[in-house]
Each structure stands twice: as C-alpha cells, then as structure tokens.
C-alpha cells in the first residue's frame, strides 16, 4: 500500500505563498456585528511571533528548509508547541491555506526522520504503539474493560471477530483506556442497544487509528497501523458484512476519514463502507424521526467544537488545472463535511436543554489545547489552555459543556479542575443516553 505523505521540501512552494501578513493570528468575522477572538493556543500562551499561528510556523519552516535554523532543543520544542488545531488556517486566504496543518506536521516528520524528534514524552507514546498497538501502554485485554457492565446486564456487545454485523463501532484508544473518558464508549453502546442497532466491536483486536503518531510526525508508525486497519476494514466488509464504521472519537473519525485517504488503496478498500461520527449518525436518525426522548435535562448547555470534527474536515477548492486563477491557487472552501450543526441540532432537540453558544464557535472555535500531541508533550499547558475554554463556557452562563471528542472531554475536565470550575463536561452521547427512549421502553 503506497502512501502520499508530503515531505517538507515538497511543500516549499506552498510555504513561500505565505506573505506573513498575520491575518491568521486572530479569529475575526466582519459580521455585522464584527467578532474577534484569540485563535492560536500557542500564540496566546507563549506570545512570540514564532509561536503565533501559521505566520510563525511558516517562518520556522522557511528557516529549516534554508538551513538558517538548524535543529536545536528549543526549535524542536517550538514546532511541537502547536495543537495543529487549524484555527489559523481558518483565517488565511492565500494559496498555502489548504496545506497549513500539513506544513506543521511535515516539519515534525522531518524532525523524526532526522532522528531529533519527537519530544521525549512522545517517544514513550510511540513505543507504546509499537508494543501494545495503543498509545496508553495499555495491555490489549484492558481494551475490553468498558464492555463488562453490558455483559453483566445480559446485553453483551457483539464481537465482529466472531459474528457478522453491518455496523462496526470503532471505539478508539482514549475511550477504551482512559478511564476518565470511558463514558464515551459506554454511552454510545448503550444508545446503539436502545435503538436496536446491529453493531459490533473489534474488542481486543482493535488497534490504534494512528492519529497520534501522525500528529507528532511519525509517519512510519502511522502507516503501519493505518495499513493494518484498512486491511481489517476490508476483511470486515467482505467477511462480516460491515457497511458502516461509526466512531465517537473525533480523532479516530478524522484519521479514518481524512488521513487514511492518503493511501493509494483507500477508495478501493473502503468501497461499500461509510465512515460516520456518532453525532452525525444519530442526527440522521433524529431527522428520520427515529430518536424519541423521555423526561428532560433542565440544564443550560454550551457546545465545544472539536478541531477534528470541525475545521479539520474542511475541503479546499484548488485551481488544479489553472483554469480560473493559476495552477495551485486556493479558490474557496467547502465546510459541508464539518460536523458543526449535527451535534447542536441534537442538543437543541433534548427536552429541557437551554442551548447557548460560546463566542468562539464552529470554524472559529478555540481549541481545547489537547491536540497535536500537546496533551502528551506539554500536559500542563494543555490543561491551562483547556481552562481558558472552560472559562469561555462559564462566561455564557452554561452549567454544562458538551463535546464529541474523548480527547477534548478529558482535557476540558482537567481544565475545569484547574480553575475549580463548577461547569460539568459531558460527551454528547452521555446526554442522549440519559433521555433516549429505547425499544424496550415502548
């Protein structure tokens, strides 16, 4: 299986499309009314221009390529002090816009390839992936721990290694191994059971999607697990009748949907398989009138857009042939694949919920601070950044903050603890599970 993952040098022409104008540095919309917000977690925390948005990262990329910035510990740390949230990308209007996160990750790949990267704590994570097929140093057996309550309740979850089902619930490592985020898979599975969906999991045979490895620049490790997963998906489709892969993890979803498409075999392997995030899947059912709610959740709730299910799924329209502007010109963006409205529609549909928006939302949402390897590499900063987002949630008067990413879920919880916030952090599935009417309730 061939993979088309760009080296930094291949992106040099794109890097030189950046004018250093600094439009990327703040989230802004004309409106009216005009709206402004800080958008770059690293810029907000560290301040210097090199840390600031794509302008700063492009400066590093230019210097690395020209040889003016030889590797040293500080430079290495600086290129990893970025959540790769793409908030800066959302502001940019120039031809390198579609490639901004790729340029940042290509610097990391170069660091890894040349033996200087990633950061020490990332190395542990990557070693764990090699040893255990997950970044949490979790024994494979533990991957199934979250399913015990279902077994005890006499509602075991189907193992697709043994039985067929049309739906694969791809659990993801964070939901399975990070106990603080375990409510995500349990609520998801509970919802699926209530709805009578014929689904299954891979259990101990599920392996990491590879997102974390990709984000920290280890493309070889990413390719290893991604190739194995694609082969598994093909097998599941051919041998177990899987037609839909659903994940409640924003990182897994983005990886399978977007990063895996860098494989030469992607279209062939994934033919007949649809990849969905749980929020999207449930929203479809809701629109079809298949979700019914009982009781109410009398809460004021706000929603945090994960980067992986939001702006990371932007599609960029590029003048490939040079027919409209010139070859390679960025023309426009298509946000139709971004999951902005689906979770909001579901929240608003839950009886009793008063929904309020944070000032920075959708494409201009402020990252929780956990992405791009930052939670592993620079945990304290990740928590601090999450507390800024929690504070923004509190400023709306909301009592609960909801998201659709176990990574955000964990980090926001840590952020809330840091500032002793009373706000409660939930995954969307937790709320839906509380009020969803199951088939047995009919």
């Amino acid at each position: 299986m061939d993979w088309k993952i760009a080296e930094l040098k291949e992106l040099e022409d794109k890097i030189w499309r950046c004018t250093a104008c600094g439009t990327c540095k703040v989230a802004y919309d004309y409106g009216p009314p005009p709206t402004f917000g800080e958008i770059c977690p690293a810029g907000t925390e560290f301040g210097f221009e090199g840390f600031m948005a794509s302008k700063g990262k492009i400066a590093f990329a230019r210097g690395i390529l020209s040889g003016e910035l030889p590797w040293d510990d500080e430079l290495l740390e600086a290129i990893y002090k970025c959540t790769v949230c793409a908030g800066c990308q959302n502001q940019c209007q120039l031809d390198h816009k579609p490639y901004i996160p790729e340029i940042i990750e290509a610097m990391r790949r170069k660091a890894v390839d040349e033996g200087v990267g990633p950061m020490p704590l990332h190395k542990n994570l990557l070693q764990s992936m090699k040893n255990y097929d997950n970044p949490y140093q979790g024994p494979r057996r533990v991957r199934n721990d979250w399913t015990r309550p279902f077994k005890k309740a006499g509602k075991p979850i189907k193992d697709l290694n043994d039985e067929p089902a049309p739906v694969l619930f791809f659990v993801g490592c964070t939901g399975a191994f990070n106990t603080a985020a375990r409510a995500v898979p349990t609520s998801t599975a509970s919802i699926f059971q209530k709805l009578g969906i014929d689904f299954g999991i891979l259990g101990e045979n599920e392996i990491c999607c590879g997102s974390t490895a990709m984000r920290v620049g280890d493309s070889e490790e990413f390719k290893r697990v991604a190739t194995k997963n694609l082969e598994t998906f093909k097998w599941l489709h051919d041998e177990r009748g899987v037609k839909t892969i659903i994940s409640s993890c924003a990182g897994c979803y983005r990886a399978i949907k977007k990063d895996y498409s860098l494989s030469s075999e992607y279209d062939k392997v994934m033919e007949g398989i649809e990849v969905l995030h749980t929020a999207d899947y449930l929203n479809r059912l809701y629109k079809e009138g298949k979700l019914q709610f009982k009781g109410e959740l009398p809460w004021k709730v706000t929603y945090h857009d994960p980067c992986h299910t939001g702006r990371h799924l932007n599609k960029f329209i590029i003048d490939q042939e040079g027919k409209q502007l010139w070859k390679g010109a960025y023309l426009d963006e298509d946000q139709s694949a971004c999951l902005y409205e689906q979770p909001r529609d579901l929240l608003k549909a839950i009886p009793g919920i008063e929904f309020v928006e944070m000032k920075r939302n959708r494409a201009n949402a402020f990252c929780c601070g956990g992405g791009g390897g930052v939670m592993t590499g620079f945990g304290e900063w990740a928590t601090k950044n999450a507390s800024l987002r929690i504070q923004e949630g509190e400023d709306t008067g909301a009592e609960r903050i909801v998201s659709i990413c176990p990574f955000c879920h964990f980090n926001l919880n840590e952020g809330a603890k840091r500032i002793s916030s009373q706000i409660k952090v939930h995954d969307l599935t937790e709320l839906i599970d509380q009020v969803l009417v199951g088939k047995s309730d009919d």
Partner: protein
Amino acid sequence: MSELSTLQKEQVVTAADPGNVDSVLKELRKIVGDANCTASRHIRYAYSYDMSFVKPKLPDYVVMTEKVEQIQELLRFANKEKIPVVPYTGGTNIGGLTIPERGGILLDLKKMNNIVDIDPEAHVAVIEPGVSHAKLADALYKHKLRFGWPVGPPSASVMACAVSHGIGGLNAKYGLNSQEITSMEVVLPTGELVRVGSCAIRHDAWHSCLPLPQLDGLFKGWLGSSGVVTKIGISVHPIPPLLKVFTVSCDKVEDMYSYMLNLSNYEMCDDLTAVSWWLAQVPIPYPFRPKPNDAPEWFSFATTTSWTEKEKEAREEIWEKVFEEEQKKGTSIKRTVYPEEALKGRTQLPSQVVGSTKNYCKQGGAGISWPGTFTPAKVWAPVYNKWKDILIAHNLSPSVRMSMYRGVHYGMLRAMIPFNKQSAEETENARHAIVECLKVDLDAGGIPYKPPIDFANEIIKRADPGYLELLRRMKKFLDPNDIMNPGKLGI
C-alpha cells in the same frame, strides 16, 4: 543547500557580539521575566522579515513587555548600554519598518492589548499598542461606534497605524488616522514617561491634543524612532444606519480626477477612492497583464452613510448633480458596477479579503511593497501616467489607488506592488520600480508615508537643510544615543 537558501543566508545579518548576549539577556530577564525575553535564533528569525522588499535582518533579542514600567526600565537599560530598540506590534507594514537595521532588542508590544476605556458619550477610546483592528471593531460595535479601519489585516495594530499616519475608511470625512489621535502616553528613549494632549493635564482626560502646543507631533510619523507610545486616545464615531456606495468607472485618470475633485467639494463621503483596473482585480495580476480593451481603466467607490432616508436622498441628489456635470464635460465617466469581491473588501472593514493580502499579493507570492504617498490631487494624473510607464516596463501591474483626504484636495496616491519574494531577482526588480515611482512622486510634490529606508534616503536628498537640521536636533534631544529604531529615518 539550495540557491534560495544561500541567498537568504546572505541576506540575514546580525549585529550582536555573542560574547555579550548572556549578560544582556540576564538583565532583560530581570526586567520582563524569563518567559518574555529570548535570544533564541528561531524566535528572532520570525521577526527578521516582513512582506516588503527590505532585506531580512535579525534582532539580537526579542522582549515582550506587559506594563509601562517594564518599558521604562528596558529603555533606561538600553539607553545606558546603547542597544538599539525596535518597537513592534503586528509587523504588518509593507516598508520593513520593524526590520532591525542594527540588531538590538525587538520590543514586541502585543501583550499590551487592553482597551483601557471607551467613552460612548464623548466618543473617545483609549487603547494600548497591542489592540488590533479586529478587537477594537468588536468592542466599539457594542456601542454602535466605529473607527477608520484601514485595508490591513484584522490583526494589525490600531495604534501603530495611527501613529504612522496610516489611512482608514473614514479618511474623506475625518482625515488620517493620526488626526484622530486625541492624547498620547509615551516612554521616551531615556526611560521617562510623558504625556501629551489633555491627558497631560488631567490623567483621565483623553479628549484632545489641542489647544496645547502639539507635542504629539514628536511621536507621529517617526517610525518608532522617538519613543515607545504606550497609550493613545482616539476619536471614535457613531455608525449611521444607512450606507450608500456610489460607483463609477472611466477610461482616463484625468477624468477620474475631475470627478473626485468635483465630488469632494461637497465633503459628504466617508471614503472617496479610485482604483485602477489592476487594483480592482482580486488578486492584483502578477506579473503585469494588459487590461482587456473593453474594460474601464479606473473605478471609484464613494462611500456615504446617512441617518435618515431623507439625508440619504439628499446625498444621492448631490451625487447625481456631480455625475451629470462630469458627463457634460464630455469625460468618459459612467455609472458602473464595482467588482463585487473588491467592493466588499474595501467597504466591509476590517477585511480578511484585503487585509489578508488576498487582494494584494496572492498571485505574486509572498511579497508586497509600495510607493505610498500623500500627494496633491492635481498631480495625481501626471504622476500615475509616469508610474504606469515605469511599472509596466518592469513587468509589474500599475495597481494604483487615489483617495481624497477630508476634502482638501490632497490625498493618498499609492501603488500596491506584489512580487515573488522567493526570487531575489524579482524582489529587486520590484524594489527598483517602486523607488523609481517614488522619485517621480517626490519631484511632483508628494511625500511618502511609512517609508522604507530607500524612500527616506530620497526624501533626504530633496529636503530643505533647515528641516533636516531641525529633525536631527529633535532626534538627538529625544534619543541622545540613537537607540530607537536606528537608521529608519535616513538621518
């Protein structure tokens, strides 16, 4: 190493003696703390270049201050040690104004970004250097107030634009953004904190620089070479609910000048601007591309705002009268539809379309610079015609803008010139053409604003000796050791 990297390496120079770096850094840390200063190469590198043709140069240190007292202490130290200091906010100018000519300390003011006060009754706002156009626009709108937003990035500094005589979308009504400054707080190069304008008499009175002697002139247009401005008061204005933009086009610059002169007599526009066909394109064509024969060479947008329908109708009546008069003169002026994205980019400010340089240099590739001038309106046409010849000869688009300032028949004449910064040859070609254009304008009575050093040198060649002597004396008086952004004024 590639040809490009060799070139860049040659371009980046540094002035620091490595032996002294540690001791200076130690002192800087005492002033601003460890997290706010650095001598790390990769951080300095990000400040070494901008959008312009000005050659990259590294600062030796980068310092971020969070309060005025830190700036005072920093300048006392720098003055004692005779270390250059370059004030920096957004770095969004296109004249290399924050590229450190002689190394030293790059003083990044972005953390001082408080909107100190907005007085919705007095229509005065007090801001710190790091306040961006986007931030102030957001805050002012809550009071239904506005400012003259420039066609710069939303992240650009309001203060840096204003103290550098930058322009904005209300120039035809209220003048330059520097004319909107009502009071200033400044740290002198020797570390003293001074105030000019009403706030010098009462600390919370920021309403006017008059009727006191206008000492604010000591800090406006000096390109950060006379002190560090730490607060300014600015006039802000109510937003009338009704917008009407009158758009015309014509084939000759002389016809456009005639129309603008006529209309400006009525002093009814917020902004009265004309742009050549090349500037009306999003993006500006690079390299030069001939205009289609059937396209007009000039477009104008006259932005007006009104409080009532009747007021709007009165403006329409005046505009119709002007338009008819111009047609009767036999000029080529006609009603037109201004290109949609370009109009949006120029009337919905701050703008990511123009501000992001999408309009300016998306096609060129990283580089944008200008001959940007204040020029008597009566010579706009002859200067433009010469600029056009020069720019086309250099294979560059004559993407020119003319804007009337407060109805006094002078205004901005400038050409936004994109170029491919990846190529040293193309960058030098642009620089050469731009300087040639500037010479033409200077000889016609224009004066450049936010000038790169190449321009400053041309100004000096032509300046009255008495003016230069006064300038030198003032500089020496304020900055005896020439530490503030040295070299930028060309004196």
